[in-house]
């Protein structure tokens, strides 16, 4: 309890200090609860998510950092490893490969990397995974780009 709080405070300070260090990630702590964070990440370039801004919700357990934070997408995203409805993320470092040395910032980086490199073999979004596994790269990309434009981009005119 106390350890997780201290650790989160330190991460908060770190985030405040290095706000401009990583322009692709904006980590914001909840005003009243340090165990609730939200992050805005930019879709990586040369992917169908390019140009989109995706919102993540962090729920940090009290055993953090021994237990990984629970992260999900608040923004709808078409990705084989993200549940289309709940936004749940299938990522090994958020499950069994978690290390207490990771931080929320590094989790954000890992999620950006996952967006660029989907793993269709462990899909949460079966449609997306099936498209990729069947080799329909173009189908996957167009679907993902469409949802990015619909959900992750500011509405234009």
């Amino acid at each position: 309890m106390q350890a997780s709080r201290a650790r989160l405070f330190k991460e908060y300070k770190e985030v405040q200090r290095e706000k401009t260090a990583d322009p692709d990630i904006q980590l914001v702590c909840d005003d009243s609860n340090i165990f609730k964070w939200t992050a805005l990440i930019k879709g990586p370039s040369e992917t169908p998510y390019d140009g989109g801004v995706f919102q993540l919700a962090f729920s940090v357990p009290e055993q953090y950092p021994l237990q990984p934070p629970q992260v999900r997408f608040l923004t709808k995203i078409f990705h084989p490893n993200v549940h289309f409805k709940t936004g749940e993320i299938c990522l090994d470092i958020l499950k069994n490969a978690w290390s207490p040395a990771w931080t929320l910032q590094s989790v954000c980086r890992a999620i950006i990397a996952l967006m660029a490199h989907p793993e269709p073999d462990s899909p949460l979004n079966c449609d997306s995974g099936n498209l990729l596994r069947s080799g329909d790269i173009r189908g996957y990309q167009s679907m993902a780009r469409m949802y990015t434009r619909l959900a992750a981009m500011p509405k234009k005119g």
Partner: protein
Amino acid sequence: MVSDSIINASIPVASSNPKDFAKKKRANRSAKLKQCKLDARREQWLSQVKNKGSRQELNGGGGACGQGMQVTNERGQLMEKLAIKPRGEAEENGGYTSTYNDFDSPSNSPTSHTSSLLEGNDSGTNFTGGSSSSNSSSSGGCCSRSMSEEDNEGDDDCLDDWEAVADALAATDKKQEQLNSSLDSAPERDDNVVHMSSQQEASDPKVPAKDTSQQNPKGRGAVPGSPVGIHAWRPNDAFRPQSLPNLSKQYTFPMNSGRHYRGGSVWGCKSLSIPTSCPICCEDLDFTDTSFLPCPCGFRLCLFCHKRILEDDGRCPGCRKQYKHDPIEGETTKDAGCLIFRAARSCSMISRS
């Protein structure tokens, strides 16, 4: 009088040899007072010399300008090499003044020494070089050289000792030597002083400069450890006061940087560049924690987090490999603790060496 002064001189030298900074500070303060006295006396005495001035020739030669002169000459030249006194005068001048500084600055004892000597010599029989103001320095140099060659036989041991002092770094030897030198060169020191004062008389505009140069080593106050190893510390002492701390910083800096570099090479820059706090719980690492290296990957964490991880899944946060001492820990905690501690120690030793 002279013997008294020598005793006075020897006491601060001995007392300042151990690194007792408080004493040293006190000694410095008293030395400032003594310096004031000395200045006053010098002024008095300058006026006397001015009165006598012209009728006294270099009569102080003889045996008086003996081995100490030579010694100081050596040292003066050394000082000159170090460009402590970049003044466009003859070598001897710089040498004398700087040796004077040298004796003056480190251990305040010479101040009292010289001042009392001045007092003792106020009768003025010994005032050499008072008249030949422009020649005094060069003649002094000649005198000292000839005298040194003359007295080489008689004072071989002393000279050898001084060379040994120049070479050796043993502090005790130096202590002895300084005492010896202060004893041996006592009659010559006032010759130096006389030369100085004659210079001052000759070139009045230089007097303030000289005074400041004499004051400077005092004004900076610290002058630590210099009487112990005049030769070792002289450059720092006479030239820059900050250089001593700088030196010590330089000593510590490479060690730190090396450790940092090592840490960085082992485990990125994140976890080991901040070795003061545990990367997991962000609590400060105490000594036991910092010497605790549970995993060969070099990831450090506090014992508390390590125990919690062992209770949990027992994998190193750095490399995600199982901690090696897990099973032993499961059987008997005591042994495991010892083992882990030993491993940590050896690892830390390795990483440091």
